[in-house]
């Protein structure tokens, strides 16, 4: 069962970076873009399982630190010509707090 979970405050994540939420069954990378948009993706590149939370954020995309695959933060899809997709999780913010609909165990 998925569950809305408060994971921290927006200012806990520096702009253009991500922090990790260690959920029951998966690691989730919570990103903050230059425009303060927040996205949550499974912290695992579809290519070779690289930790996306350690990548470089640009626009609404992240580049995987292992082999430079570029993924859309909005839907988790790899930018062409690469293929693949990682799970995304719904996010909401309230009073500066970030909530993520995390997958259950």
């Amino acid at each position, binding site marked *: 069962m998925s569950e809305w979970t408060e994971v921290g405050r927006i200012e806990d994540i520096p702009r253009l970076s991500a922090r990790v939420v260690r959920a029951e069954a998966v690691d989730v990378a919570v990103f903050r873009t230059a425009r303060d948009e927040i996205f949550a993706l499974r912290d695992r590149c579809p290519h070779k399982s690289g930790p996306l939370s350690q990548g*470089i954020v640009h626009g609404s995309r992240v580049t995987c630190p292992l082999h430079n695959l570029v993924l859309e933060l909005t839907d988790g899809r790899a930018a062409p010509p690469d293929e693949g997709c990682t799970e995304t999780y719904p996010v909401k913010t309230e009073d500066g707090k970030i909530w993520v609909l995390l997958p259950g165990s």
Partner: protein
Amino acid sequence: MDDPQSRFVNERVHANIQKDGSFSVVPRVWGGVVKPVELRAIADAAEKYRVPMVKFTGGQRLDLLGVRKEDLPRVWGDLNKAGLISGYAYGKALRTVKTCVGMEWCRFGVQDSTSLGIKLEKLTWGSWMPHKFKMAVSGCPRNCAEATIKDFGVVAVESGWELRVGGNGGVKIRPTDLLCKVKTDQEVIEYCCAFIQLYREEAYYLERTSTWIERVGLAYVKRWTVEDSENRRELARRFLESQRFAQKDPWAECAGDPEKSREFVPIKQLNRAGYSHV
């Protein structure tokens, strides 16, 4: 002003990311010479943080492989206590200075290559470059430190030192070009600083010295670092001036600062095991 988010993860967290998302940690080992107390600190850290592999690097250092990101600041703190600092093995920066044992031990050695290597490393560590930068000092022309495939290589001869530049032992092997011959350690230091500074000021980002020299020509490098002695001294002066601000151990800065080490731990921990799923 340094923007950490513009840097690749390795330079942001002062360690090398590995294929499983863990990191490798390489302390600086000056000239490849290590004290028992330093070896003990490395061994203790390896056991304490359950480091899966400790391996010698090609540059005469020790690599702790498989360190978890959240352990990095504590590993650094422990290594710092034994006087070990970051080896910048992750950076577009001065990497290793490889040496042979030279005239202090070797029956063929004609100069003290170990001491000169340590001197060069103490002088140049912490300097950022367009790309990684490796050095070596060999105590005789047999060249056991393989100085002829380094960015700046020094090879001892009876009358002094041969200075060699632009070598590369990677994807495209390139032996060094001979820059010039000098007599004293002090001259080696001045030419080394000048060469680094010319490279830092003029090469493109991600351009190794080998490709830079092929682009601008050896004659150009010689003109500004050998023939024009005034320019050489000025380049060396600029390098040393910038070193006054660059030589700060990033491990010590981070290990002692809770604000800086916060980035290394999860923002939220929900599973009881406390392990990463990556």
